[in-house]
């Protein structure tokens, strides 16, 4: 099967407010799909609809060919979910929790092996209320895997975690993908999406404003690659008429946008010929985060303008 998740014209309204305002996307089986957006953009609502925890107002959603709300029981046997801020019974240990889920799903996971996979083996016998935030998320991850899920939903799994804990979760996500599972990852850490995701969709105000691979989004919405020098503004003045390329000055740095790779050599020889002192030359490229900030910012500006009375 090609697509694990299919969403067509999905709408969720709370009273007059449309939290999700008609979105479409598909997630191919065996890939990591990252759903990005600022807080309140509609990420969690969409995710919960796909998990069968919330009923949609309009549109079609299919996860593994099932309707998440109507076929929730069948779907839940085949998906794994880690919500934001995973909570569990305070006095229960990770090992007991995995045995519990194993009994509920009628699977027979080896708790120690599963905890090893999420790097929580050393806390197998510690009660939930003694675990740190990162350890709690790892336990949630382990529980989500007790039923050997085909699709894993991770809703901001690394929010609030320290860098080591975040990397541990990233490793698990990479492993999940290598095992052929589909991963639906919402996050507001753009670097996380850039590192892990095959496909990205950016949602804002309930609408999808960009989709594609991280590189596709960057090249479609980002600025071109740039050469950067630490130098006085005089260098910019010198380069502008020589190169016919956009040259900008900011924070004591001169940046020249490159239209293609060969431009780099022309820029370097012009800088050399200028005789103006410079140091620390580097190339720079928009990250997904730069693109995200620009896209969301543009949309908010547009929204503000349209809200201004005529």
């Amino acid at each position, binding site marked *: 099967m090609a697509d694990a998740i299919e969403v067509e014209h999905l709408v969720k309204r709370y009273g007059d407010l449309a939290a999700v305002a008609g979105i479409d996307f598909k997630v191919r089986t065996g890939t990591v799909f990252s759903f990005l957006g600022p807080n309140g953009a509609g990420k969690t609502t969409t995710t*919960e609809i796909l*998990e*069968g*925890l*919330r*009923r949609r107002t309009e549109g079609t959603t299919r996860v593994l060919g099932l309707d998440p709300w109507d076929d*929730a*029981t069948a779907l*839940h*046997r085949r*998906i794994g*979910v880690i*919500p934001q*801020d*995973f*909570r*569990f*019974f*305070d*006095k*229960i240990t990770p090992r*007991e929790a995995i*045995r*519990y*889920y194993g*009994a*509920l*799903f*009628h699977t027979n996971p080896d708790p120690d092996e599963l905890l090893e996979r999420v790097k929580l083996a050393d806390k197998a016998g510690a*009660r939930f209320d003694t675990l740190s935030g990162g350890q709690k998320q790892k336990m949630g991850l382990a*529980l989500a895997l007790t039923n050997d899920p085909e699709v894993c939903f991770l809703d901001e799994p690394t929010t609030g975690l320290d860098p080591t804990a975040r990397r541990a979760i990233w490793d698990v996500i990479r492993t999940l993908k290598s095992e052929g599972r589909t991963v639906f990852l919402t996050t507001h850490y753009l670097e996380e999406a850039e590192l892990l995701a095959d496909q990205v969709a950016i949602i804002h105000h309930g609408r999808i404003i960009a989709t594609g691979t991280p590189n596709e989004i960057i090249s479609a919405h980002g600025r071109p690659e740039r050469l950067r020098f630490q130098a006085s503004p005089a260098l910019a003045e010198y380069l502008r008429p020589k190169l016919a390329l956009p040259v900008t000055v900011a924070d004591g740095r001169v940046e020249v946008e490159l239209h293609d790779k060969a431009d780099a050599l022309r820029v370097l020889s012009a800088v050399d010929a200028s005789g103006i002192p410079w140091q620390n030359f580097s190339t720079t490229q928009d990250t997904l985060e730069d693109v995200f900030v620009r896209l969301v910012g543009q949309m908010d500006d547009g929204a503000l303008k349209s809200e201004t009375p005529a």
Partner: protein
Amino acid sequence: MRPARIAADFKIVVRSYLRNPVALFFSLIFPIILIALFGLIFSAAGSTVVPITVLNLDHNSEASVQFLADLNDTTYIRLSFVNWNASDFAANLGANDDSVGLVIPQGFNSSYFARDQVNVTLYTDPEDGAASGAAQSAVGSVATAFNLHASNGTAIVGVAQQNVGSQVYSYIDYLIPGLIGFSILTSPMFSMVDVASSYRKEGIFRELSLTPLTRAEWLTSHILWYMSLTFVTAGIMIGAGVVLFGAHVNVTVGLIPFLVAGPLLFVSLGMLAGSVAKTPESAALIGNIITFPMMFLSGTFFQVSMFPPALQSFAHILPLYYVIDGMNQVMLFSNTARALTDVLVVFVTAIIVFLLAIRFFQWRDE
């Protein structure tokens, strides 16, 4: 419903409970405290021994000593002797918080044998009606016996006392079914209301909704746990009542239906109250509104038959009344027919509340 899933959830519930010291205290130690506390308060009032402060101005004369010995033989009088001035006697009684005093006058012995009229003086406190009544009747009956003896008479009419019913029940006997009922009500009500609202707020129900566990299975495992707990608590309370106060109660299989139906009813009711509430705070409020009237008016601490008629009618609409009345019928009166009616009322109510709880308690948001 899958027994394997109920068993798995049951295990989690038991572990969570046993690892919670507060919960353990309330289920294992608190019942003993309750029995001891209420047993002490009310058994003291039931077995009255009236202390009488005695001033014998007829120092150790034969008649006065005999009079006081006879008074002591009534067993419900305890005498203590003082050497106060006769004129200060009443004031000293008040100062010592003694409510009953007796003065044997000087010359009591000589007057008695001379068959001259002589009065002993009994001081009583009208505010302590029970003690003064008992003292009056004891002193009066000893005086009558002295008069009969002095006139060489014989008592012709005697009074033989019989209790109403086949057996006499002391307060502690009523207290045991009452307090078992109290814990059948409070233990699940307070914790289920809290669980229902806090698990929803914390997202634990969402977690569980993503597993094959159903709401009915989840509720069933909690009911089974509270049933087990009720058997333990009832055992502790009966044991404490018998050991500490010598209670007389029948422990028969007839008790089992109440220990089963009671938790079924109140776990479901707690869940229902917690589910209809929007926030943990309003859940606690709804829980209290349901629990408190039942806690006091269903025959827990006081027999419903002692209430004014209007309050008795109110008690009859409280489901806990039927749990406690039924246990009274089994443990005290061996009245099977009435116990059966009670258990039927409890079971039917419990099934209805269970179904309502399942209906209103939602894992997922619409």
